[in-house]
């Protein structure tokens, strides 16, 4: 009989909490954003403990709100981007943790969870890196150029959402 390694969802749950905490620290630059971040962290923790997906989603939504409020309050660009990635990491791994509860306490899922955390973390790190690349190479876009980039992003989003 195979030996059991931890309870399913432990690795992903811990990652979600750590990511949420990181997002809170990065985005919480004023009272409002800190409050939203703390609420998000608490909801996420409740969702992970009670294994309820809506609470995890709501907690991630609060973290996203904290990121937006932090951005509006003047947080650093790199901090906002990193906080965004952290919120998405918390959301994604939190959902996985809740899903794995269905496997039962005796199931082994540690390898699956480690791979999932690593894969999601690498993707988000790469995305954050690409997003911050223009700042690193010190490109100062004109207002028109910035608007065109935003327009392009909206068009790309719309195209991604369109059915085949």
């Amino acid at each position: 009989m195979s030996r059991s390694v931890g309870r399913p969802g432990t690795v992903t749950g811990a990652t979600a909490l750590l990511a949420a905490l990181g997002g809170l620290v990065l985005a919480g630059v004023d009272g409002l954003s800190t409050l939203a971040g703390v609420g998000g962290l608490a909801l996420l923790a409740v969702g992970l403990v009670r294994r309820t997906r809506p609470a995890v989603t709501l907690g991630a939504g609060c973290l996203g709100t904290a990121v937006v409020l932090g951005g509006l309050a003047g947080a650093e660009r790199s901090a906002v981007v990193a906080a965004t990635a952290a919120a998405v990491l918390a959301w994604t791994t939190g959902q996985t943790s809740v899903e794995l509860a269905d496997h039962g306490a005796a199931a082994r899922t540690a390898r699956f969870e480690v791979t999932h955390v690593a894969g999601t973390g690498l993707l988000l790190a790469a995305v954050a890196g690409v997003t911050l690349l223009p700042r690193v190479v010190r490109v100062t876009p004109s207002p028109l150029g910035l608007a065109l980039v935003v327009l392009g992003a909206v068009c790309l989003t719309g195209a991604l959402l369109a059915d085949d």
Partner: protein
Amino acid sequence: MTEDEGGESRPTNRWRGLVGATLVAGALGLVGRRPALLLASAVGVVLLAYARTTAAPPATVAVAHTVSEADPAAGERVAVTVRLTNTGERPLFGLRIADGVPPGWTVVEGAPTHGTALWPGATTTFGYTVEVGAGARGLDPATVLLRDPVGVVEREVTVADDDGFEPTPVTAADDEPALPTAITRLLGRKAVDASGEGVAFRSVREYRRGDPPSRIDWRRRARTGALATVEYRAERRLTVVLVVDARRAAALAPEPTAPTAIQRSCSAVERLYATVTDAGHRVGVATLGPARMWIPPGRGDAHRRRVHEQLPDAVSATPDDGDADDGAWLRQRVPERATVVLCTPACDDAVADLARRLEASGRPTAVVSPDPTAADTAGRRLARLERRQRLQRLRAGGVPVLDWEPGFELPTALARAGWLS
């Protein structure tokens, strides 16, 4: 080993809402002149692009089983080891498997599910122990879920094991009925430990002075010259209570046009009522829910008419506060040592607790559970998994459970589960 390559890559929708968040962040960044929010929005756009363009891994997984006992009898425990191999050339980062434990079998150690990642050619194993139930001839095909590393797309396939566990039809020991105890009691005459003058053959023993001549095994006498006496199981009539879960939590169906679990439970109770009373047992009928109908155990034409008249009204009562019915009143009314058959979709924990408490109070309880779940959305798949886990826990607690799939008549479902002789 066989593989099913037919599973389609489908989105898991776990980033539902990211589009709106991305657009809001971008708009606020633009209006508020906050470049940081525009960058946050860009993160969302790239993630959406990833979710849109990535595909689930191919179904290149092989499953093989080894078992401790290839020909187990009912009630025997069998250790099952499952071996997973990635037969493809791409790594499988997110691999989850639920092995096909048939209804009526109980997992007593370990788990029939597993989550892992496999490089090309790599193999992993996991194991569990099952207590073999009656009826099923072997393990059902395993369900395998393959996801990308992030989990935004998935592919679901079923994988059968051709050369693995295929026990012969389960046979019963001499002194045990071939059916699950509760249903044996329900559908036939109850067998008790003491031998007597019933009709079910039990054993042959040496003749003792005073044994009735009608019990002498005359064939043996002719063959060997020795006198022997045939013993039969003693029998007695039973009290059975059939319960319909008519709470709002049970008013569920896999699709809008399909009968609800309450309707299916109702039809099951009507059919079981006829079967059990025809066998001479006394039957009571109750409903959980707003009406809380209780017809004490009885039999005869008047009792039958009362059941047929009151049951439809009771299950169609308006569900005001019926969900608060935890069945405490029922536990007080069901006679001691009565056999209880609870017809419920088991979509919440309250009714599962009721079944366990009835069983624990010395009233043999069986659950007939019409399956109202569907699998067309992630939420419904989750609800299906939760229900299966609930039924599994009931079985682990010693409560026989019939998972009654839609599209089957009750006798067919009973036969498939091995609950009929």
